[in-house]
């Protein structure tokens, strides 16, 4: 019989994914034979889940803010469905998905748009590289095509959007762009630079469910030295950020969200990934669309006195 301390350690190591097979066996033996321990484990796992669902951001708020322009919500929101619902904050753009937003006022800041290449895909003939974007193409990735409105989906603005083609095996689909951080203005000082990346996604079939993903990697290599092999070394990135947006069946229209990443000064490139994963294989052939990619440098502004 392990001591209480040792049994709690078994729970901790399992929850953190560091348990050995022997510890796993011991944990399972305790869970089978001791109802009190079973409850303790379930309480611990439930707490871990609750802390991971955005509750921390929600309780840290200074004041909730209901914004009139939903397009700017993702600047500050983190996901916390129940608190948001309880607070009566539901945002129109997400009203048919299970995603609700919680807004945290973080002080004044200025967003300086960065020059992303073809953020709205308005040139129908923009080069799209197969695989990782190379010198000849700023966008690259899985099969994709610039298209006009189709399947009931209108571009966010302008005439064109990017269609992420169906995946035969239902595997995730993604496109990339590499941003050259050397092009940032020299006035962007400090040890870290904060960059916000946002995009809008839509589906051709509102009955499908999907997870849209934005990922960003700050890397020390120059843009011209990055190639498809880099993706296998992505864990070596200096900094990375990921956010997924789960959309339930029946959600119509564009789903916009964003992430922020703290980019150290020694990072030379920012690799941005925009992807979609469809868990239900019945919808693996559904087309998805990407539009209105925005990348901004965030510059804190002093609070007014």
């Amino acid at each position, binding site marked *: 019989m392990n001591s209480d301390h040792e049994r*709690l350690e078994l729970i*901790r190591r*399992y929850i*953190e*994914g*560091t*348990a050995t*097979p022997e510890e*796993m066996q011991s944990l*399972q033996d305790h*869970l*089978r034979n001791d*109802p009190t321990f*079973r*409850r303790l*484990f*379930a*309480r*611990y*796992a*439930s*707490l*871990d*889940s*609750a*802390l*991971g*669902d955005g*509750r*921390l*951001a929600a*309780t*840290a708020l200074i004041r909730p803010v209901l914004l009139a322009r939903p397009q700017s919500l993702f600047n500050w929101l*983190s996901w916390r*469905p*129940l608190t948001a*619902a309880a607070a009566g904050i539901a945002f129109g753009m997400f009203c*048919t998905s*299970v995603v*609700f937003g919680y807004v945290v006022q973080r002080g004044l800041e200025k967003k300086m748009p960065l020059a992303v290449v073809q953020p709205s895909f308005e040139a129908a003939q923009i080069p799209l590289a197969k695989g990782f974007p190379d010198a000849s193409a700023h966008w690259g990735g899985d099969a994709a095509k610039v298209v006009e409105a189709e399947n009931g989906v209108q571009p966010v603005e302008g005439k064109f959007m990017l269609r992420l083609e169906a995946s035969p095996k239902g595997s995730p689909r993604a496109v990339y762009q590499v941003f050259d951080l050397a092009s940032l203005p020299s006035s962007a000082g400090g040890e870290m630079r904060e960059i916000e990346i946002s995009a809008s996604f839509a589906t051709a079939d*509102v009955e499908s*469910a999907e*997870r849209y993903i934005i*990922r960003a990697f700050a890397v020390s290599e120059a843009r011209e030295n990055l190639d498809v092999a880099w993706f296998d070394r992505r864990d070596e990135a200096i900094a*990375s*950020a*990921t*956010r*997924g947006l*789960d959309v*339930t*069946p*029946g959600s119509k229209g564009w789903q916009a969200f964003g*992430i922020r990443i703290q980019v150290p000064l020694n990072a030379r490139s920012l690799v941005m990934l925009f992807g979609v994963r469809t*868990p*239900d294989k019945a919808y693996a052939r559904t087309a998805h669309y990407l539009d209105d990619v925005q990348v901004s440098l965030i510059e804190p502004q002093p609070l007014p006195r």
Partner: protein
Amino acid sequence: MKPAENDKHDEFLRLYVEHEEALNGFVRTLVPTREDAREVMQEVAVVLWRKFAELSSVEDFRRWAFGVAKFKALAFVRDRMRDRLVFDEDVMELLAAEVADSADAYEAEREALDECLGKLDGAQRKLLEAAYAPGVRMDELAASLGRSPMSFYKALHRIRLALMDCTQRVLKREGIA
């Protein structure tokens, strides 16, 4: 969507949002990581919506949703049995019964958590916020804070245990526990 479908969709969303946190906790108890739980939950949402018309009474939503979630978590774990440390099915069944049978108690504990989070000191709070930020890698985070991964994990563990003690005190004070 037609009006009737809209109504159905709205009702589904209301119920889903009402019980989503309980479902998250339920699934998290059965699968190894929070990321696994997110994957399972996405599939659960799809099945719940597809089969929503089969639900005889909205009063039964939580029990029904837990049943679907258990099925999906079992399937998820079966798929990964060869390469992951996962629970045996009999253990998952025991845990699922524990959470489903005491769902109200777990919900009360989650509600008490907000008060307890407010009692953390600044350093504890920052540590938790960093550890539970989306996409964070614990080893990188520990290194950036100048700590070993083990020391970092243990500090987190102590905060979680303190929060569990606190929620029990809150519930006792309110005559729930």
